[in-house]
C-alpha cells in the first residue's frame, strides 16, 4: 500500500505579529522519511502543527493523497501521530503506565497492544526501564518514550518536531536508527531538525526560511543544485544576503 502524500500550497499563518508561514509550498511524498530544515523561527513547528490540523491556516491548503487519489483529512486523522518539541508526559507515571494509558486512549485490542509494546520496548531498548517514572528518565529516554506513545497506534503519518534536540550524540544516533527502521514501510515521516547531519540522512529535505520554502528534494540533489557543500552553508548564504 502506498504511503500518504501531503501537499502544501501557499500556506499562510500569522501568529500574533509574526508571519510564521508566508506562502509555504512543499510536497511530501508518501512513505518516505522527510527532513524539515530551517533556523529557529523559520516556521517549522507552525507548519507541523498545521499539517496535524492543530492550527487552521489563514490561507492556502494542505492536501492528503494516496497513489494520486485525494484523501479526506477526517478519514486519516486517526492514523496520524505528532510528537511535539516539548512532550507532555506524566512525570509520576512509569513507562509501562504511559503505554497502558495510550492503549486505552487509542482503544487498541489487547493482542495488538501486547505485540506492539514488546516490539517498541525492544527497539527503543527501554525494557529495563518499564517501571521507571517519566520524571526520572534521562533526556534521551524521555524522547524515546514520547516516540513510543506516538507509535503505539501504528500511524500512517508521523510528524516529529525536533525529536533529538538536547539529546547526546549516541542517543541521537540511536533515535535515527529507530527512524530508519520505521521508514522503509508505508509510513510517511516528517521530522524537523536543526542538525544538518540529520538532514542529510533523510530521503527528502525541505528547507524552510522565514515561512517560505527555500528548496526541496533529495539531499544530494539539493546541495548540487544550490552549489553548496552543506545545508549550513546554504542558510548562512541566505543570512548574509538578508538586509
Amino acid at each position: 500500500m502506498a504511503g500518504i502524500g501531503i501537499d502544501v500550497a501557499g500556506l499562510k499563518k500569522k501568529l500574533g505579529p509574526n508571519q510564521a508561514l508566508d506562502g509555504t509550498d512543499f510536497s511530501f511524498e508518501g512513505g518516505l522519511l522527510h527532513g524539515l530544515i530551517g533556523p529557529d523561527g523559520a516556521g517549522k513547528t507552525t507548519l507541523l502543527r498545521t499539517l496535524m490540523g492543530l492550527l487552521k491556516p489563514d490561507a492556502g491548503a494542505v492536501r492528503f493523497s494516496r497513489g494520486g487519489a485525494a484523501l479526506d483529512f477526517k478519514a486519516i486523522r486517526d492514523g496520524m501521530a505528532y510528537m511535539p518539541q516539548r512532550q507532555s508526559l506524566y512525570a509520576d507515571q512509569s513507562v509501562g503506565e504511559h503505554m497502558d494509558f495510550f492503549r486505552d486512549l487509542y482503544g487498541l485490542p489487547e493482542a495488538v497492544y501486547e505485540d506492539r509494546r514488546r516490539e517498541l520496548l525492544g527497539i527503543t531498548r527501554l525494557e529495563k526501564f518499564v517501571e521507571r517514572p517519566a520524571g526520572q528518565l534521562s533526556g534521551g529516554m524521555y524522547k524515546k518514550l514520547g516516540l513510543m506513545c506516538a507509535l503505539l497506534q501504528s500511524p500512517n503519518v508521523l510528524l516529529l518536531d525536533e525529536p533529538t534536540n538536547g539529546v547526546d550524540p549516541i542517543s541521537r544516533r540511536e533515535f535515527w536508527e529507530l527512524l530508519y527502521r520505521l521508514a522503509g514501510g508505508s509510513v510517511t515521516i516528517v521530522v524537523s531538525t536543526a542538525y544538518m547531519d540529520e538532514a542529510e540522512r533523510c530521503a527528502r529535505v525541505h528547507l524552510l526560511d522565514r515561512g517560505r520554502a527555500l528548496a526541496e528534494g533529495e539531499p544530494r540533489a539539493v546541495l548540487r543544485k544550490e552549489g553548496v557543500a552543506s545545508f549550513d552553508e546554504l542558510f548562512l548564504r541566505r543570512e548574509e544576503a538578508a538586509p
Partner: protein
Amino acid sequence: MSGAWAVEAEGLTVRFGEFTAVDDVSFRVPPGEIFGFLGANGAGKTTTIRVLCGLLLPSSGRARVAGLDVASGLREVKHKVGYMSQRFTLYDDLTVEENLAFAAALRKMPAEDLARRTKELFEVIGFDRPTDQLVRDLPGGFKQELSLAVAMLHGPEIVFLDEPTAGVAPGSRARFWALIRRIAATGKTVFVTTHYMDEAEQCGRIALMRTGKLIALDSPAGLKRSAFPEPLYELQAGADAPADWTQRLKSDPSVIDASPYGLRWHAGARDEAGFRGLLERLGPSVRSRRIQPTLEDVFVRLVEGKDR
C-alpha cells in the same frame, strides 16, 4: 585534599536504592577553569552536580567545593556555588526585576547589594532590556543569560551550568559561550554540561562520564589524541557505489569502528594497507579522505565503548 582546588571529588558514589548513579568518581578542577562535563543522557552528570552544589549527600566518597566538604558545610557550600539547573531556572510569569528580587530574598541579600550586583551582572552579560518585562516575553537567548545572572547574584566562586544551551538557537549559543569565557576570565570556575560538541571544544578540560563512571578526563586536543591513535577517514559514496558498502565498511577487519555523519561515514583504520585494500574493492565511487577527529568522533568512540 588541599584547598587550592575549586572542585574536588574523591571516590564519589551516589546510590538510589539498587541503582548506582555515580560510581567511584574522582577529579579536581582548578579555579578559573571551564570544565566540561560530558556523557550520554543518564550517565550521572546531573546527580554529580547536585552533590557538588550541596543538594544531595553522596552515599560514599568525598567532595569538596571551594575547600569546603559538602558533607559537613552545606550552608557554606551554597554561598560558594551558583547553580543553573536543567529543568527550572526562572519564573516565566514574573518580570526580570521580580525574578532577581526573589532570588535575592531567598539569599537574604540586602536591597543595596541586589542593586549593585544587578548592575554589575547586567554589564557582564550585556543585558540592556527593560527590567519590567515578563521573562516569558524575553527573546530566546536572553532567558539563558538572565538565568546565569540569577545563579551568580550572590557572587559565587563556582557556577554549575547544567545543559544551559539545550534547545537554544545556534547564534544565541555562541553568545552564551562568549559570556562563559568572560566569566571564567574573572577567575570564576565554570562547570558546564552540554550535548553540543562545538561547545565542548571550548572547554579547558573535559570529563567524560558513562553509566556513572568517569571514563576520560583531558583537554579536547588530548582526548582526540588518546582516543584516536590510528588514522580516521571520512568516506562518501557516489550513486553507483555498492549497495552494501556501509555493511562491508563496518565489518572489514581493517576497520576499528565506523559511524554515520549525515551522508558521510567516519571510519577508524586499524591497518592502513588493509584499509586501502578495502577501498580498492569498494571501487572509485566510494571516496575517502583522512581527517582529524572531532569531539563528536571521540564521544561516539569512547561512550559506545566498542572493544578494540
